């Protein structure tokens, strides 16, 4: 059985179910639960649900401490960029403790971070930070693209015994989708083949996934069958599913809204070249944002961030075809 929910509500549903299931799950952050009527505070009380000051270093550092002391904190960060205020805690504290203790302690926490608000949020609230965090040993990174994955990945992230950065894409906030009822877990580290095809593999996530699926529709009309894969988790990265697809198609287009050299697509391309060079019939193409701070002005923002047309053009390039009628 399933029900329809907006992406953002599916995340809340997962947190609520996990808090009902496990009383060590606690939830705090800025500008949440400021009144008794706030749903989480009403259901779980002020001990487990708290509004914090604007103090990311303390919020995330305290999550590390509470995790060491036996709880499973979920930190509401709203904007992914707010993690950058507390970079040491995210990168060099939480993910290090288990290894440095020789496996004696664990740090189960979730950093819930909205990202990619390319809707006029200008230079400091629009970033794609996946790559910045996917190379930190000990830190897991997930990024759901659908309401169902939003629920299933959050539940798995909370149950995971490691720190997890849970990215949710702001442009998908109100996108509705079918969400399984009750307990629903999407395992971390497993990619999803969202569309099957034989001519080219496209790898994309979140808003870029939707643009890629749109491009795939257009390309189908030109007789090109694109297979579209959503990594869903960036650390650990499911390279096998991508390689398997490339084994079938021989061509790979990687789509990422990060600037060229800070895109997770760089890492995927490296893995595929190293492990699947013989499978490739053409060079890998990366469709990334331009190397620019995202501008406020709408036409410039659109110029910097990839879209379905650019994805389709890249696929045609890889296949050496021109659009029908061109």
């Amino acid at each position: 059985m399933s029900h329809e929910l907006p992406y953002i509500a599916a995340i809340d549903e997962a947190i609520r179910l996990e808090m009902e299931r496990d009383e060590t799950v606690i939830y705090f952050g800025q500008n949440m639960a400021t009144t008794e009527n706030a749903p989480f505070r009403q259901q779980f009380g002020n001990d487990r649900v708290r509004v914090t000051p604007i103090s990311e270093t303390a919020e995330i550092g305290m999550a590390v401490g509470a995790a060491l002391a036996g709880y499973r904190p979920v930190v509401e960060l709203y904007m992914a960029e707010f993690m950058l205020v507390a970079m040491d805690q995210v990168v060099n504290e939480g993910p290090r403790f288990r290894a440095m203790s020789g496996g004696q302690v664990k740090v189960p926490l979730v950093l819930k971070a909205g990202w990619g608000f390319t809707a006029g949020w200008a230079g400091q609230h629009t970033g794609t930070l996946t790559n910045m965090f996917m190379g930190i040993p000990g830190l897991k990174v997930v990024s759901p693209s659908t309401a169902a994955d939003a629920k299933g990945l959050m539940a798995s992230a909370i149950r995971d015994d490691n720190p997890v950065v849970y990215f949710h894409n702001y442009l998908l906030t109100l996108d509705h989708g079918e969400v399984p009822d009750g307990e629903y877990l999407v395992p971390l580290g497993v990619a999803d083949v969202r569309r099957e095809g034989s001519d080219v593999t496209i790898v994309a996530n979140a808003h870029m996934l939707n643009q890629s699926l749109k491009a795939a529709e257009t390309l189908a009309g030109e007789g090109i069958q694109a297979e579209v894969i959503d990594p869903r988790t960036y650390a650990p990265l499911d390279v096998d599913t991508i390689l398997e697809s490339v084994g079938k198609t021989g061509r790979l287009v990687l789509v990422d809204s990060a600037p060229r050299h800070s895109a997770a697509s760089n890492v995927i391309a490296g893995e595929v070249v190293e492990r699947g060079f013989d499978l490739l019939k053409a060079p890998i193409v990366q469709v990334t944002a331009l190397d620019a701070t995202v501008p406020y002005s709408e036409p410039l923002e659109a110029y910097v961030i990839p879209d379905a047309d650019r994805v389709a053009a890249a696929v045609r390039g890889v296949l050496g075809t021109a659009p029908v009628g061109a």
Partner: protein
Amino acid sequence: MTPSPLDNDRLVWMYTQMVRIREFEERVKRTFEEHPGVIRGHTHLADGVEASIVGSVANMQPGDYVLTTYRCHGYPIALGTDTKAIMAEIYGRATGICKGLGGSMHLCDPSRGFLGTSGIVGQGIPHATGAAYAAQIRGEGQVVLCFFGDGASKQGAFHESLNIAALWKLPIVYVMENNGYNVETQTHQEDANAAAGEDLSVKAKAYSMPGVTIDGGDPVAVYETVGAAMERARRGEGPTLIESKVYRLSAHGNLIAPPGVPLHYPEHEAIAVFGDREQYEAALKGDPVPQFRGRLVNDGVMTNEQAEEILKAARDEMQEAVTFGVESPFPENDEALAYVYA
């Protein structure tokens, strides 16, 4: 030393700037209805905060610097930046003060000492402190005005900066505009001093600098307090923390929504979140703009006719700014890559 006394012309000038800021912000807000889709992302208005802004920057001398938060439209207006260029920026146009690249949150006019803003709470405080370090090294008597909200004082960046500024006796005045809210969190819910019934200016004690709390709705009080602190800084005696108590009359910002959802200004959080209409109405009664007008008229500084002329001129100016903004072209694509590196 105290700041130079305010003569009648100066008082009328201050009132004029307050009215200009108010009318500008009203037109930003109205743009969501009059020109849907023209403003994107997130805007933050300073209606209600005009007295604090104008009273502070009225003390700036040529060469002084100012750095602010993303609630930043008011400062350049008071400093004399063309309102057409500010509105065009908020509309994302090539004619904007930042050529359409910055938008509402990232205004900047270095020609008037306004070095910019941060969209991340508290992170502009070290920038201002660094500008004060530069001013100290340069030794030409420049002073920095650093504006931030009450919420920012919960950031490490605030505490780290104030410590260094006091330690190095940097020429800076920290103006904390306490509007009682961090988005929808009330100050006593997130601030230990407020929860204990103390003013937020007590934070200055931790860094052995003067700390004072003032009514930010009184432009003369703001002018005198900030002016004295700037003179102190100019004499090399170090920083001051001023808590300027204000009330923003609009919500924190416009609706936060993905593309396709029409944006608008919701009700103030006092009502929308806390159901406290009384608090909001009391704030409206204390609105600094009409208060100051009444005071100047009562004191014989300005006539009602003059006040009406000032209002009409401001309304005409802002109509021009809106028209200029909507009629201006968008930037060319190349502009996106033109300023990546200096």
